[in-house]
């Protein structure tokens, strides 16, 4: 029973893995849209707001 469980898990895993790796490695694979400059700008603005909040707390 125990070995049957292991086999099922590993078999399931290997089957899924191989198919997906092949698809990802294929030249036509499209990744999801990346972060843009607007996101990095958003991070900088958020960081600046946090710094202001921290300063307000200690003065």
């Amino acid at each position, binding site marked *: 029973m125990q070995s049957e469980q292991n086999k099922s898990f590993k078999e*399931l895993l290997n089957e899924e893995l191989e198919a997906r*790796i092949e698809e990802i490695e294929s030249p036509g694979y499209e990744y999801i849209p990346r*972060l843009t400059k607007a996101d990095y700008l958003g991070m900088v603005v958020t960081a600046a707001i946090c710094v202001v909040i921290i300063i307000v707390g200690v003065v």
Partner: protein
Amino acid sequence: MNKNEQSANQEAVFGIIPMISRERTHGFWAIAAVTIVYSMAPWCFTQGGAIISVIGLKAALTNTLGVIVLFSIIYLLAVIIPAREGIDTWIYQRACFGYKGIVVIWFVAIFATWGWEAILTGIHGTSISALYTIATGNVLPDSWIPWLGATCVIVGFIIALMGPNVITKVSYIVIPGIIIACIVLFVFVFKNYSWSELMSMEAVAPISDNFRENYMVATEWNLAFVCAWYTVIGVIPRLGKTERGSYWGFMTGFGVVYALIACVGAFGALAVSDMTGVYSNDPSIWFSEMGGGLAILSMICLICSNISIMAVAMYSLSVSTKAVLPNWSYRKILIAWSIWVLFLNFTGVVMNYYSVFLSVIGFIGGPTVIIILVDYFLIRKQRISIRDMFEQEAKNAYYYTKGFNVLGYVALLAGTVAYFLVYDPINAVARMEIFNFTTGTGLSCLVAGLVYGFGAMIPSVKTYLLRDMEAKKN
């Protein structure tokens, strides 16, 4: 194989395999919703309660909100890797620490992570005890509290055994439960204090006479609090349809909401302490001190939330363990983790030594994530071999030295040494002046990142690390 074992197998497989772009289901709002549920745990109250022990309310609120969100901006950049590559950060870390090396780190991190659930058992035990007192007028002996806390583990275990469908339904209790508790705390606080009175409230039990030292200890605790996400940071972003949705969804839940709930805890702990003279970082104590129907309702909400979160944690961490220990059955893993939480519950180590527990979370979760960021963004320039992430033979790129990336371990060790050189987590005091500029977690992140980054500039080490690029060229 029973249905739940099959389900755990499928979940474990699902957790390991790379997610293809076309399979992604979660936009910004879905990711934000999931992370908000995760971050609405009663231990956030505990964090807020701990912060106001060392600094006054104004500084505590701004420190908690500012530091947690600021550090999250950097820390959650790690979300981009699972979002883009479709793999959990635990899989990605094979590149940073080696196939075998990451298993060692995983065990240390996951053993520590259960400390959060031990906090739930503590809150659970005191909530039931307080309810009993309100109902009967009798006080239960303190020795009963761990036994009452253990019921949270037992019920959580039973729900986790029932499988994912039941767990999903149970998890819906968390949000209303915590929101009700927050509203009750706010009503209590603002009914009794004005804003200016609150802002002038001083710390309950400062560690030092020097404000800056106390402030930096609070900063250290808040940085470590962010590092609590280390073990689960890579699960949800794999489902993200865009990097933007994944990153900002995480920032909303694990950054902003997480900090706000901790702020509510700071309000509650300080107001109750000021009014009754009883200080605790356990929210059930606050509610029992408040008394009245709303407090009873809040404690019932806390009890339900504790059980829900315990069940969700038991299921998700056991499935995650299954991925590392495929030879163990789901039930066996659940039993093993339940015993560990019960041990933490009965010893009371996490609640009694909360700052020490936070330091464990900080020195593991801080430097490791910085190493991940340096590795992916600076050294590999965002290019990896997805095949080598999964094929673990000696010929594969991330096998390194018998399954261990020596540079990754050297960097992590350097970060850990730096941490303990500057900070004494047992007494929560600085060992060196530099702590008052960097904190322990901050310095350990900096040192680990620099050691890893500069180490990778040595030509032979660079070749050692970038075998995946060589394999791609060939």
